């Protein structure tokens, strides 16, 4: 399979009144064509910032310190971070090549413009269609994502739609120009469980139909199991493990990934009592990141004198399985 997007050594800082927050600290990952990459981690681990950094639409108080985001457009390689972030080149990629959906469809739509208006905006911008054709296209894409009576709903305002319908409309907006990559930032978090499943189904169908790739960002490992092909586990601004979805679920290497998996409830037989575990402690303050391996203060396999001193690198322990943990590094390295 050929690569679509490579992120290398991405580093993002935030300047806040309380000091500098190192939100993303050297993140690497890749997405292949027609692949779903899941990025999973607790809130505050930098996963959403990573997604936004791909399109360079970060908040004004943030700064990309380092790294490359290489997008493979046909045979051309474009480093998105090298483009002027308000310039024409990147705007031709945003919405057309790579589009994005968000957690809260209510606030992600402008409340005073109709859904149709906002979907057509992207179509008009990136295709040569005129208004009438764009409207037709918007209606057909709304039908495609399963909005009934799209013909009339297109003139609805966001608050007139239900939560699930809004997220469908959001997906329709993102897919309206048939992008090659969809960034989905917690697309199901704000929805009811049944609707969540529907939206994930829809995303999978759309992926097959348009032959696109998806990066899905979530804190919910269940969502990962449902949709992802490849998984990157993030902790405090770094990727700690990256592997195929099967390897992550059946052969997790990093103590953090293991703890994360133990914290999901499982359906078991009555006599087979299994305690639901939670990870000890809380995510450390982003202003004072622990030394060495940032997970060491919560880790069950903590090795004093090593884990709190040496920062482990992401190394390949088997083909397509990478982990950043000193347990897997050769002693004396």
């Amino acid at each position, binding site marked *: 399979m050929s690569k679509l997007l490579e992120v290398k050594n991405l580093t993002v800082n935030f300047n806040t009144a309380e000091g500098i927050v190192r939100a993303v600290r050297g993140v690497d990952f890749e997405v292949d064509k027609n692949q779903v990459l899941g990025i999973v981690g607790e809130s505050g681990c930098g996963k959403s910032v990573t997604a*936004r950094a791909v*399109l360079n*639409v970060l*908040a004004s108080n943030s700064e990309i310190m380092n790294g490359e985001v290489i997008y493979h457009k046909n045979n051309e390689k474009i480093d998105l971070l090298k483009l002027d972030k*308000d310039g024409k080149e*990147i*705007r*031709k*990629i*945003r*919405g*057309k090549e790579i*589009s*994005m959906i*968000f957690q*809260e469809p209510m*606030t*992600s*739509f*402008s*409340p*005073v*413009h109709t859904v149709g208006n*906002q979907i057509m*905006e*992207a179509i008009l*911008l*990136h295709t040569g269609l005129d208004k009438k054709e764009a409207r037709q296209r918007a209606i057909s894409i709304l039908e495609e994502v399963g909005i009934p009576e799209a013909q009339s709903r297109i003139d609805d*305002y966001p*608050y*007139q739609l239900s939560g699930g319908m809004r997220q469908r409309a959001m997906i329709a*907006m993102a897919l309206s120009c048939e992008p090659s990559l969809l*960034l989905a930032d917690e697309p199901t978090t704000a929805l009811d469980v049944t609707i969540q499943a529907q939206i994930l189904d829809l995303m999978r169908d759309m992926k097959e139909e348009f032959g696109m790739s998806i990066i899905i960002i979530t804190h919910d490992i269940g969502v990962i199991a449902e949709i992802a092909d490849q998984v990157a586990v993030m902790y405090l601004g770094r990727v700690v493990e990256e592997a195929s979805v099967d390897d992550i679920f059946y052969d997790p290497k990093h103590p953090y990934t293991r703890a994360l998996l133990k914290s999901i409830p499982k359906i078991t037989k009555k006599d087979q009592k299994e305690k639901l575990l939670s990870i000890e402690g809380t995510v450390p303050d982003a202003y004072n990141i622990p030394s060495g391996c940032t997970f060491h203060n919560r880790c069950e396999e903590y090795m004093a004198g090593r884990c709190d001193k040496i920062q482990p690198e992401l190394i390949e322990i088997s083909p397509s399985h990478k982990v950043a943990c000193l347990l897997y590094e050769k002693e004396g390295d």
Partner: protein
Amino acid sequence: MVPTILVLSIVVFVIIQLPPGDWLTSYVAGMRAAGDEVSPERIDILRERYGFDQPMHVKYFKWITGIFRGDFGFSFSWNKPVGELIWSRMGLTLLVSISTLIFTWIVSFAIGLYSATHQYSIGDYLATFIGFIGLATPNFMLALILMYLSFEFFGYSISGLFSYEYANAPWSIAKLIDLLKHLWIPIIVSGTAGTAGLIRILRANLLDELGKPYVVTAKTKGVSNLKILFKYPVRIALIPFISTVGWTFASLISGSVITAIVLNLPTAGPMLLQALKTQDMYLAGSFIFFLSILTVIGTLVSDILLAIVDPRIRYK
């Protein structure tokens, strides 16, 4: 709106009746003191017309029904029906207020937009500072300072709306130009406080909206920053901006009264003050009544505008 105006009329009537004594007596006394004799027939006619011997509600009824016929009562200090006195003054009041409103909107929109998009720049601080001063300075104080400065440095006093030669002339192009030459002073004086207030509102709202997720959404669609700014945050920040037009207009009308007194404009203000001081209550009451009605209309207009610009209200 109709009930509001009805209650309004009662309040105005109470204000008219507030001064002690009956003004017919003081009117007659005043005329006598000035050497004029008022015929007993005339006194009887006036007494009958305004129902002086009758209970309050009859007096009110006579007054309010008179208004529907275009009879607003009689001004005793001018010895003329109130209707003849107020219209040109109310017209000019409306002119000054509406021009001020337009000025206020344009200036505060431009400055507010600049301040919000250049947050913490020197221009932003300057705008904020001037805004604070503008809010803290009473209208009449600003008028006095402007008058003093222009007198001191340009040697003429800026008062009135017309030059001497045009004051009583019929309307013509030259008179209109003359009016425009004078108009900017009252516009600045009565518009400053409102402008300062609106700048702060717009700036705060716009800053709020600029951080909203839909702005990021629009960015991820590839829309240019300038287009995003005007299509989304500005559009939404304008909603409270427009909805405050009601009270902005109200405070302009209210503030223009005092400005007009200091600048001696031929609008409602000076005549209202004069009428209140001489207890010429039908004249004063009519002014208060019509100034209030203008305010009510302003509020109504802002409700309608709000429904136009905010779909969330339209569909409720």
